[in-house]
Structures are given as C-alpha cells and as structure tokens.
C-alpha cells in the first residue's frame, strides 16, 4: 500500500497553503466536500450493533465445531435451527440460528491482538502515523443523525478505538460499565439549569482571551465538546443511558452480566436513534484453560445476544438493525500443552443478524480440522464492504488522511451477496457492485 502513494497529488497538496493537522481536506477543497456529502445509496438498515469478541474467539469451540475429530476437545455439539451443529454451550442461539447468517470462512493475516483488533475496528492494518477511523466513525460521518442530541456512535466496555482523521466529532461516546451508565451528568442538588448557565457564562468570559488567541483544532474541539455536553445534560435523552429504568425481569433476561447489560443498553440506544453501538465482550484469549473459559463466555454471549435479537423483534426495531458479531482471529485447532488454543487468523467465524440479513444461511466452509478454508474465504475487507453497503455508505468513496493519502471503507473488499435477503434493494446492490 505504501508504494502506491500518488506523488504528484501529495506534492501539490503540500505546496498549497499549508495543510491543516487533523482536518479533512474537504475543508480546504470544496469539491471534495460536495462529493463527501453525497450519500447516494439507500440504506438497508438504520442502526448497527457491533459485538466485539475481544481476544480471538475460538471458532471450533463455538460456531464451527468438528465433532468426532482430534481437534474438537471437550465440548459436545447441539442441533440448530439452520441445520448446522454448534457448541452445546450456545443453546439459545441454536434455537434462532434461522435468523442468523453464519460465516465460517473468515480469514486474516493479523495474528496479534493489537493488529487484529485494529483491523477489526478499522479495516486497515496499523500503518505507523495514520490513525484510521473506526467503523462507527464512518457511520457517524456519512449518515445523518436520527437523534440530534445523542452522539451517533456509542461504544460500551473498555474501548480504545478512535475516529482517527475524521476528528473528535465522530468519536464514540464511551460507556465503560453499562450498569453505571453515563457518569457525572446529574447536577448537584442545589443547582438548577439557570444557575448552571450563569456559571457557564462566567467560564466563557474568563476563558475568552485564551480561546480567541488559540484557534488550534485541539482547542476548538474542546469548545465543541463543552457545547455538546450541555445539550445532553439538559435533554430528555440523557435518560437513555440509565438501564435501571428497565424492570428487574428484563435485566435478568439479559443475564445480569456486563455484556448482557451492554446488550440492554444497546437496545435502548437504538430505540432513541443512536446509529452505531460497539459492545465489547473480552476474555476470549484462551491460551490456557480454553474450555472452562469459553464455556463461561459462551453462556454470557448466548443469553445476551439471543435476548437482544428477541427484544429488538418485539420492539419492531429488528428490521432496521444490523447486528455483527466479530472477533480478531480464531484459535488453533491443535490444543496446546496448557489445555488452551493459540491465535489462529487463518480461519475463524463471525455472525450477522438483522433486518437485511438472510437468516439461516451459512457462508464458507473450513476443512475437517478447522485449519484451512475450503470454500468462499471472506476477509475483513469483504465484511466491511458488505456492512457499509447495508448502512447506505459508499464503500468505494475515497476519503483523505491529513497527508493526502486516499482511503476507502472497502479497502478493496467485495460484497458478500449471499448475506442479504432477496429484496429489491439488496438485488440492486448486487447488480451495481
């Protein structure tokens, strides 16, 4: 990729009146801005929930078991609604596999957590100085917000992925622990909105010299964040972050785990118009005690995700939502000396569910030991292109890093047409691309 730098474009850009750090070039070149704002494609869904199984989810011990082989290990398998067996520890999902599209042929070249998670979140491998925007930031930038007050992009769990060169406006609002909600939004008891606004006036007056003097982007970004914070604090929407407004029963259905609570919060956020929610379930890095740990994680995942799907259906949100379950790599079919499995990017699994998805479909196949892909390998780029198209983004549209380097959402991936339900919209995408 580095070798394909367009030198003439780069030098042209450098010679022209400086270049602004961190701002997109569309700010300087109106023609680019016009192109950027075009979202000519009709979206198939309005919301995305991305479930990040951090650590490398073992494919054999979840969605791609190899019963009766040496690599299967301790788990038994159970039947599912789509005909293919999965791990015995995912019984609730098994019942609704007819709503889910399963990809057993994901493949990648990134075998370290850092690089793998980076690729999972941005569709690019780490490239030194560039910080690529995460998928949620793409959605935030290229779709219109449904709710003007809430951020378009919320991330749940400890999460370090950034909006990169799209700037802090498309950064996710991070909720570290769903049961604690959004901290520090309540005013102290003796303070009302009017008084608070008086204090803000004082603040802005005293800080006016500094703000006038320094027009650096990192300063103005903070100015904007202060304004947004105030809008949220005094809105009705701020209640969306409090999962304790739901009944005990509902919380229990999700499993009362951090992940389960996160799924519940994701549902609430979608209800209120948030476009993209990223939720992390970590702990899949099972170099040791693989079976014990995967069993526990599977229970958490099984309860949370199945209930999320059912609730979204109940609330009539399912048709407009896409759920993606991804991980950075799979794990070795060979069990190591510590009763664990090690990193295995060559083959792994992921899931998709939601309104535009053809439920019950199984894409790709690994061989009898789960070590290699024998049918329809799908890369992260393919997955991104497919997701992008669902959301109404143009996966081939170029955006520019501060140094003038072009990047596309697709990163040369191809749409996976088998994912989609056969509707008119889906068909038209397949024909166009």
């Amino acid at each position, binding site marked *: 990729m580095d070798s394909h730098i367009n030198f003439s474009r780069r030098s042209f850009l450098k010679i022209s009146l400086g270049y602004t750090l961190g701002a997109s070039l569309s700010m300087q070149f109106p023609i680019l801005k016009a192109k950027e704002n075009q979202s000519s494609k009709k979206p198939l869904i309005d919301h995305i929930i991305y479930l990040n199984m951090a650590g490398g989810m073992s494919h054999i011990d979840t969605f791609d078991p190899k019963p009766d082989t040496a690599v299967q290990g301790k788990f038994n398998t159970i039947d599912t609604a789509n005909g293919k067996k999965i791990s015995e520890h995912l019984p609730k999902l098994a019942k609704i596999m007819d709503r889910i599209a399963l990809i057993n042929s994901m493949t990648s070249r990134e075998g370290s957590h850092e690089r793998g998670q980076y690729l999972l979140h941005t569709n690019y491998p780490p490239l030194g100085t560039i910080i690529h925007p995460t998928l949620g930031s793409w959605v935030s930038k290229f779709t219109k917000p449904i709710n003007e007050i809430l951020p378009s992009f919320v991330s749940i769990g400890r999460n370090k992925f950034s909006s990169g060169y799209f700037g802090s406006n498309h950064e996710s609002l991070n909720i*570290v622990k769903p049961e604690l909600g959004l*901290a*520090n939004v309540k005013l*102290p008891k003796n303070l009302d909105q009017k008084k608070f606004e008086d204090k803000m006036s*004082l603040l802005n007056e005293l800080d006016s010299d500094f703000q006038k003097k320094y027009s650096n982007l*990192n300063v103005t970004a903070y100015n904007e964040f202060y304004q947004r914070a105030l809008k949220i604090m005094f809105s009705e929407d701020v209640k969306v972050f409090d999962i304790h407004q739901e009944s005990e029963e509902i919380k229990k259905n999700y499993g009362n785990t951090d992940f389960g609570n996160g799924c519940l919060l994701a549902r609430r956020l979608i209800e209120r118009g948030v476009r993209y929610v990223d939720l992390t379930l970590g702990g899949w890095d099972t170099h040791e005690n693989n079976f014990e740990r995967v069993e526990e994680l599977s229970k958490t995942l099984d309860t949370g995700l199945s209930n999320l799907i059912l609730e979204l259906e109940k609330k009539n949100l399912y048709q407009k939502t896409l759920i993606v379950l991804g991980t950075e790599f799979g794990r070795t079919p060979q069990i190591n000396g510590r009763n664990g499995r090690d990193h295995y990017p060559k083959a792994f699994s992921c899931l998709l569910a939601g309104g535009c998805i053809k439920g019950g479909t199984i894409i790709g196949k690994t061989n009898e030991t789960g070590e290699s892909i024998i049918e329809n390998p799908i890369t992260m780029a393919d997955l991104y292109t497919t997701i992008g198209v669902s959301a109404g983004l143009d996966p081939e549209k170029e955006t520019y890093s501060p140094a003038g380097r072009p990047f596309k959402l697709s990163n040369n991936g191809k749409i996976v047409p088998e994912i989609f339900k056969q509707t008119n919209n889906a068909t038209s995408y397949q024909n166009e691309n």
Partner: protein
Amino acid sequence: MIFENPRGFMGLKFKFVILIISLLCASSTLVCQDKNLNQSHQNIDQVLLKNTKSESFIGISDEVFLRRTYLNIGNRIPTFEEIKTFEQDNSQTKRSNLIKRLLDSEDYNEAMYHFWADMLRLDSNIKGVYGAKYQKWVKSAIAENKPYDKIVYELLTASGKIYQNGAVGYYLKDEGNILETASTTSQVFLGTQIGCAQCHDHAFEDWTQKQFYEFASYLGKVSIKDENLRKEMRKEFKKEEDLTPQERNLLRKVIEATSFEVTDIGKKELKYPSDYKYKNAKPNEIVKPHVFFGTQPLLQNDDQRRVTFAKWLTSKENPYFTKIIANRLWKRVMGQGIFEPLDDFNSNTHITHPQVLEYLEILLKDLDYDIKRFLTILYNTQYYQRLSFSSDSMSDPTIQERPLQRMKAEQVWNSLLTLTRKDINEYFAVENVGKLEELLISIQKNGLTEENKNLLSLHLSNSDKEKNSKKGLVVKQKQKLNESLSGRASDIVSPAPDQHFLNLFGQSDRQIIEEGNQDPNLPQVFALLNSQLTTNFILKNSYIKRQVNMILERADKIKYLYQVILTRKPTEKELNTSIKYLEKNSKEGIEDIIWALVNSREFIFIQ
C-alpha cells in the same frame, strides 16, 4: 578551544562555520572540548537556527516557562509557594536553577515513571499480583538515575523470581511468549517493527520472517516457569482435602504465580513454525541466532545468549539504540520528535533535523546515557523555551513554534490533586497488593500452614465481593475509589479504575505500547463539570479553598486563584469580571470562579 567565549566575541556566522567543520570532521571532538557540557544547549540552538532567518527563537515569559516546565518535568502545575520561590530568584540563572530543582525532585521521578510504564506496558496485574515488584524496580532505577543502557541491559538479562528481581517482569509481561517479547524489544529499544515479520515476510520493508526468528532466538532459551516447583506444589495441594472449591481455585492461582521464575534452559530451542513456507529454512528446524543489522555479536557460550544479545543491543556501536532514546527524550521535552513515529523507523521515515539528531547521539554516548544530564541540556535550550503555536498552519518546514498540547492524563490528575492539598506527597495509595504477595512467598517457603490458610480465606472473602478481581488483585471497588483519590498518578493501579480521571483523559491502558492520547471526549467534560472530584474535593474541601478563605480583599482572592490554577496574574478585565461576579454571588462566588478556571481551556492546555 573554540567555545570558551561564545557570546561576547564571536559572530554567529563564524560559530556556524566552526560548528559545521567540527561536525563533519570528528564529531566527538565537539563534545570533548566542552568539558562541562555547558555549551551543548547553545550548540543545539545554533544548528536549529541555521535554517531560519532569525537570530533567536521567540521566547516565552517567565510565567509561561514556569508552568510549562513544572508540567513537563514534574507532571503537575506549581503551588503558590513554588511560584513565589521562582519569582524571588533574581539571578541570571533563574530558569536553569528551576530546571535543576525539578530534575532533582520526587515529581521528576513520578513523571519519568509514566515514560517507562507506557513503553514497557507496565500494569499492576502481571500474573495477578506481582506488578508491584516490577514497578518498584523501575521506580528505583529512575530515583537513582540509572543510566539508560544499564536499565535496558538489566531488563533484557533479568533472571530469578519476581520478588528477588523485579526486572523479570519484563519477561513475565508476555507470559513466556518470547516471539512477542522479541517483537516489543525491537520496537521499544530499536525503534524497529520487525515484529510485523512474525507471521510472514514483512510487507513493505526488507525484513523476512527468518530474520525475525533469528533475532528472537537470542531469547529462545528463556523459560518463565519453574516446572519442578510447580509439580511439587501441586502434589502438596492434592494432599489438602478440606478446601472449598473457591479455596482450591485461588490456590491454583497461587501455585501458578509462585512458580514463575525466569531462567535460561540449555535444552530449550526456538524452532521455525510447522507451517513455515519460505525456502530459506525448514519447518520445525532449530533457529540459529542472528541479528538483522549491525555487526554480528560473537556468541561464545550458548547459555549466555541473552547477555550477548543485551550487550549488542545496548552498545554504543548499535546504530539504532542511541538514536531511538535520544529522539524519545527530545519529543518529551520539545513536543515533537525529530522523526515520528518514535518506534517505527523505516525506509520512509523523514528526519526533520539530521544534524541535531547526530549531535544528540554523540552527546548521549558521551554522557554514558545519563538521562538527567541529557535532559538538563535539552531543557536549557532556547528551543525548549520557544513560543507555542496558536493555530495549526505550518507554512515553514523548519518549525519555529512549539505544538500546543493538552495535558496528559497524569498531568491533569496530578494538577488537580495539587489544588486539593498542601503537599501532593501527603497521601499515598494503600498497596493491598503487598499483603497477598507476602502470603504467596510464605506459602512457597512454609507450605499451607494454618496461618496461611486463614490469610487465604481472608483474601477469598474479599475477592468474592470484588467481581473485577479476576486476576487476584484483591481490592474492593469502593476502597479502590477512595484510594485512587488519594494518590499521585504513579501510585494508582494501572489500568486505572473505570471512570477514573486518568482513564477518561486518555491514560494508556498499558496493554499496548504507548497508546495514551490527549483527545477530547464527552465523559471528560462531564467529569470536569460535575464530578465528585470537582464539586466536592476541589471546590469545597480543598487546600486552595481554605487558603483563599483566609484572604480578605476580593481582588487578592482572585489574584491568588489565578496564580494557583493558571500560574499567572489576572488581567484587568478578568479581575473586573470576577469581582463583579463575586458581588452578585457572595455565597458561592469563589467556588464558581474556581470551577470556571478549572474548566477553562487554558487550564488543560500547555502553552
């Protein structure tokens, strides 16, 4: 010879000519001539000014210098007393004196700790309990100003159990995965990401997978577990019958932790992976150690691989070793590296000031990697003391203005703490970790005595309540929060507790090398506006609040607050605005002003 009286007698041009000649001929003579290295900082300025039309850099006022330097060296803003001390120094060497005071202070040790912790991914949870020993080792090394090459050497060659030698944390961090350790070693100390070639030939650079394996094989005999001890302990463990399942689980972890010992095992070998696909070696073949640049070190004794490797890596002859640390320290002081990123030196890397970099390398070698003396030189340059950018346009490639940066998470936290109490050193976070560690050592030495079993149960009852303590760090949630309010950034567990200021303001989690950031986000803003720390600890119960209450005149109150929060005097306009506000809001006006100043952009940005 040349540098005896630089200012009075010599023109700029003449100095340059001499300088260039010296650099071209025998660069080391430059440094040797300058026995006290008193002129080194001027030399750096000269070379930098060479490409510009100016005679000097546009400098900053004393007020700005004071705040910037306290933050840069000490990781916090200065107190009222410290401001007075600086103001009252009327000597020519006022600024130099401050630099020296700060470099000799505890605050410097705290600040440098984070420099290392970010590089080494030093968190509190290495294998459950022992992060503390590794942290202590690093803190001692900083406190005694151990030379950089020695620190690296000792980390690379560390052996033993962690409570014997904290430095073995370096190997425990990657849990014995020496490919990972080799990769991070190369990235952090050689600035070279050969780790990309772990799974296949590097995509863009010339490094091959074979070269990576050959490099890693210097660490190929490292083992992190004492297998015999583990077997023995398990045997003992099986004998105990009256343990609950929870006790058994914790004991299992105990055995795991105490059997960690970093040693070199003669029989152990690194082999090429079973799916190795290139023709230059065979799958499962034993890898022979080989470095991928520079002179091959002579491997006399195969058991001394790590020693040989460490000597090669930390040698003055190693073309990358010095360059990388010189640039890291330069960035720390100046705000930007001479090349960036700091740890990905490759064929596309652009070096903005090659002569300066060369000079820095010579300097550092001549100083035998004395970090404090090197930093002293950098801080005393005019370049360090130049004005900050006030916008983002860079039309001049020879950047004259310093980038305006937000405080790092640790600087924000420590600065806020400075406002809440008289002396930031007053309270330290309690180290619960120590007790469990003692218990483990005792179990290892004496077995499962009654006393040990009781202590074990005690820790178990704590860990039941604490859901987050999966790795055995036994601290209750509430306790954690209170502790975390009382300690400086380097005393707080890492990663910082959820929603702690350090976390919100972008401190590195220390799981990935140096991934701290200074980006804005909504939770930070909410925290500054409404958190307990702000509304309670800073506004109501703080040291500065008590101090300002003792001041009688309104104008003097305002002046005091501007000093302690923004390190400067208020302008006429600001004074008037504030006094008017106080007249309208006599009850909580002072608190509101403190709140406004702490929430200002000026507070969190470093001019």
